Structures are given as structure tokens and as C-alpha cells.
């Protein structure tokens, strides 16, 4: 559905995207992650046809969006800026964009707008000027605008930015619903790792214009995340003693102590091996648990690794 092939973009001699390639299949929710300035928005702008690549190609449904205006009828966009007009009401904003996207039948358009306002919880504010809306309400309206023409592909740039937790859940559910029920392909630019972890089927991590990882969340965790254990001991003295023992074990690394708690990375061995070693040394272990690496850990590992390489 979305194909990016060897994309490179240079601005005034500075390369901001370096030969990146990835593919998003139909119906997938694709998370595009990376620190500020990594090139996420530039990638999105090139795919949307707002910027021309220096080299490489970006296709949506096999075509270049920059060269095909009709194709944009099948694409919904929620950019970093909400793209809504302060002087128009919520209804007028949706009505304007719906007309631009070719919803010419007035009755059908009205029905669709009412439905959208209802789905984002803005029905009772339909006639209020958007200038009076909170950031969260604007974001919800912008999301409604982005899906007003029932697009097949949806580009979302930080959709939950500025939203309260309840609204974030609403957005998440809406995105999942669009993907599951309508088969919409979603390209999600986000900093919110929790959100990405919950909804994305596949992710790519971008750093300094290069894709550092591209896979499913599960595969990335398995590939990059070595098994970790978290050990709780009776007191800090016992923890200190345990730390010395753990540091001497060849299959344990990256030990960190926080008061009576120790976190460590283990290789090959089971956590029960650690437990028996500690018990043999007379240390009372209150709790030992295996911790799965979160997407946040994976992301930070990749980004930090990338930073070291760049230095």
C-alpha cells in the first residue's frame, strides 16, 4: 500500500534522509518512530507529495501522490498542525474539507459530518467556533476531518498530542476500528511508545535519517531485548552482597542496584539458576522475576546505540 524505496533527501547540502526503504502492507498500522529531527516528518511529507525526494521513490497504492491529485481522495491526513480554521465552526470546518474531498451530495455530507462529530464527541460543540476549542478538542476535530472522506490510507502525525488520557483511548480505539473494520492502512508518526506498542502491527525506528530497525513490535523485542531479571532482596546490605556475586557470574551483565533491588541482563541461563546461586551464598531473595523488554527499552537501546555510532 505504501512503498518507500531508497529515499534520500538533502536540504541545502545537508542529508536528512539517507537511503531509507520500507513497505506498509494493506490494512497494517505502521508506527514510524524516532527522536525529534530524525526525519519522520520529512519522510511523511515526501510520501504525501509535499516534498520531492533527492533520490528514490515513495508510492501510495503504486503511485506518486505528488503527481496524482485524484489519488489524494483516497488518502486522509492529520499533520502536526491541526489544519482547522479558527473562525469557522466545527461543522463548517468538516463541511469545507468534505466538499474539497468531493462529497458533493449535501444530505449525505450532512449525515457524514453529524456521524463524525458524534464519534469524536463534539456533537454538542458543532456550532462553536474552533478558535474557542481546547488543544484536545481541535485534535479530535482534525482527526474527524482526516477521516471525513473514508480514506483507504491514513497518515497520522502525533494524533494523541495534547489529548487527555480518556481522549487518547478514544483515538486509539478509533484507529484500531478503522484498521480492523474498514481495512484502512495507517501510517503513524509518534513519540508515544505506549500508543505505538498498543496499536501498531509493525514499526520502523528512524535515527539521523536512517532506519535503524524495521519489524513487528514482538520481533524487535525478541531480537534486541536480551532477557532481564529483577531481584528484590531483604535489604540494601543483602543487595550489595548479591550484586558482587552477580557481577562475578559470566552469564550475567549490566547489573544495576537500586536500594534493595537489582536489575540484570542474563544470557542463556534461566532465572532459577541465579536464584540457586544466591541461595547457596546465604542470601535471602524475596522476589525474582523475569522482565520482558518494553518497546521503550528497545527504542532507547537502538537510539542510544545509533548516537554512539554517530559520535
Amino acid at each position: 500500500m505504501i512503498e518507500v524505496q531508497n529515499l534520500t533527501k538533502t536540504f541545502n547540502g545537508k542529508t536528512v534522509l539517507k537511503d531509507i526503504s520500507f513497505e506498509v502492507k494493506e490494512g497494517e498500522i505502521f508506527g514510524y518512530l524516532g527522536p525529534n529531527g530524525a526525519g519522520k516528518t520529512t519522510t511523511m511529507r515526501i510520501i504525501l507529495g509535499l516534498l520531492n525526494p533527492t533520490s528514490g521513490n515513495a508510492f501510495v497504492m503504486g503511485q506518486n501522490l505528488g503527481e496524482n491529485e485524484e489519488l489524494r481522495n483516497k488518502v486522509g491526513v492529520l499533520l502536526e498542525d491541526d489544519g482547522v480554521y479558527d473562525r469557522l465552526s466545527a461543522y463548517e470546518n468538516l463541511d469545507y474539507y468534505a466538499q474539497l474531498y468531493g462529497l458533493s451530495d449535501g444530505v449525505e455530507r450532512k449525515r457524514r459530518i453529524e456521524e463524525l462529530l458524534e464519534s469524536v464527541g463534539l456533537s454538542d460543540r458543532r456550532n462553536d467556533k474552533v478558535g474557542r476549542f481546547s488543544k484536545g478538542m481541535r485534535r479530535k476535530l482534525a482527526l474527524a476531518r482526516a477521516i471525513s472522506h473514508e480514506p483507504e490510507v491514513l497518515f497520522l502525525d502525533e494524533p494523541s498530542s495534547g489529548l487527555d488520557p480518556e481522549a487518547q483511548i478514544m483515538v486509539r480505539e478509533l484507529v484500531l476500528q478503522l484498521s480492523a473494520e474498514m481495512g484502512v492502512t495507517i501510517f503513524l508518526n509518534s513519540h508515544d511508545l505506549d500508543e505505538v506498542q498498543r496499536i501498531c502491527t509493525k514499526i520502523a525506528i528512524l535515527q539521523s535519517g536512517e532506519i535503524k530497525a524495521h519489524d513487528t513490535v514482538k520481533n524487535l523485542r525478541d531480537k534486541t531485548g536480551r532477557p532481564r531479571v529483577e531481584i528484590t532482596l531483604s535489604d540494601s546490605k543483602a543487595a550489595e552482597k548479591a550484586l558482587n556475586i552477580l557481577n562475578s557470574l559470566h552469564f550475567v551483565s549490566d547489573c544495576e542496584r537500586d536500594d534493595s533491588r537489582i536489575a540484570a541482563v542474563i544470557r542463556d541461563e534461566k532465572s532459577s539458576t541465579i536464584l540457586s546461586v544466591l541461595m547457596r551464598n546465604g542470601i535471602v531473595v524475596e522476589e525474582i522475576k523475569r522482565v520482558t523488554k518494553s518497546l521503550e527499552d528497545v527504542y532507547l537501546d537502538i537510539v542510544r546505540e545509533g548516537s554512539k555510532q554517530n559520535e
Partner: protein
Amino acid sequence: MNKILVVAKKEMKGIIKTKSQMLVGLFFALWFSVMTAPVVKTVEESAVFVQFNNLLFYFVLMLGIFMAYLFSGRVFFNEKREGIIETLLCTPLSLRQIWSGKVVGVTIPAYLISLLTAALMTILGNIFSTSMLLPSPAIALHIFLVVPAFIAAAVGLLGFGHSLLGMRENQIINLLIFGALFGALAFTKNIMKGDFAVSWMAVGVLLIIAVLLLMLTVYLTRYLSRERIVTSIP
């Protein structure tokens, strides 16, 4: 509805809803009209008709261009400054459709204020004059053809500049245009002193200039690109 008209309608609605700008327009329409009264009252009977048409000739045009300048800032400049233009560029409209819609949407209200000025000037002129005052055929052509063409060309050029340039360059250009408008107003007023009378020739020359400017504006839009607009958003 044609998508150009959808954009134009939205822009007109936005302008009309911006009370401060509408009040400025109405204030100038009234002020320019009131300025007609002392002229037609004090000037000799034989020169009243000529003076009245001279006033119509430059006040209506100047106010139209001033309103075009004022409204263009809101429609092109603010939309870019607020980043809304980027979302608009993702819609299934060509750059030319967006630009044309905005030009039409600004030209119509600016021209309506010009027309209102012409109507008020005529009404007030007749109140204060002993003669019946109506625009001459050349002035009628000027009001109905030259003025809208000039307004459209001004909006088009301003829109082109706002779209193409960055915020700082736009602010500098805005100041220069503002100065140029007032300079032109003073210059025209000087030229029209004495025996000057608006002729078919003058109107014809202005019409040709307006058409050439419109053609230039349409030609210049070729140099607009989505990339240029997006990369100059602050």
C-alpha cells in the same frame, strides 16, 4: 460545486466573519465618500463633473487595492503562518485550484467594498452638489472592468508572494507594499490636480496594464510548488 468555488466561498465567509477587517473596509468606504462632499461643494459648477469623476477614478481603485492587500494577508499569509496550508495541500486540489479559489474569494469582497465606495460617493456627491452627478461612461468602464481586474491582479501577486516567500521576506514586502500604496495615493492626487480629466485613453491604458498584470500573475503561478510552500512555512 466546483472546487475553486468551494475555496472561494470559504474565504469570503472567513473575510466577512472577520469583523475588524470589514469595519476597516467600511470605514474607508465612508471616509473616501465623505471626502467627496467638500470637493463637489467648493469647486466651480463647470468643473464639478470632472472633479467628481476624477475622485471616483482613483478612490475606488485605491480602496480596492488596499482591501485586496488587507484581505490577502489574512487568506494567504495567516494560513501559511498557522501551517493550515499544509493540510490544504494534501487535498485533491491542484495548486492552481487552491490559488485561484483564494484569489476569487478575496477579489469579490474587496471589489464589493470598492463598489460600495463608488455608490456612497455618488450619493453624497449628489447631496452636496447642485448638478446631477453620475459616473461618465469611461469611469463606469473603469469601475466595472479595470478595478476588478486590478484587484484580482493585486490579490494574485500578493498571494504568489505570500506562498513563495518565507515569513520574514513577507513581512518586509508587506511594509513595502503598504508604503507603495500610500505613495501611489499621494502621487495620483498630485497628477490629478489642475486640468486633469479622466479620459478613455487613461482608462484604456489602465485596463491594458491590469490585463498584463493578470497574465503575469497566472504565468508566475507556474513557479509555485508544494515543496516551496511547505519549506517556507515557519
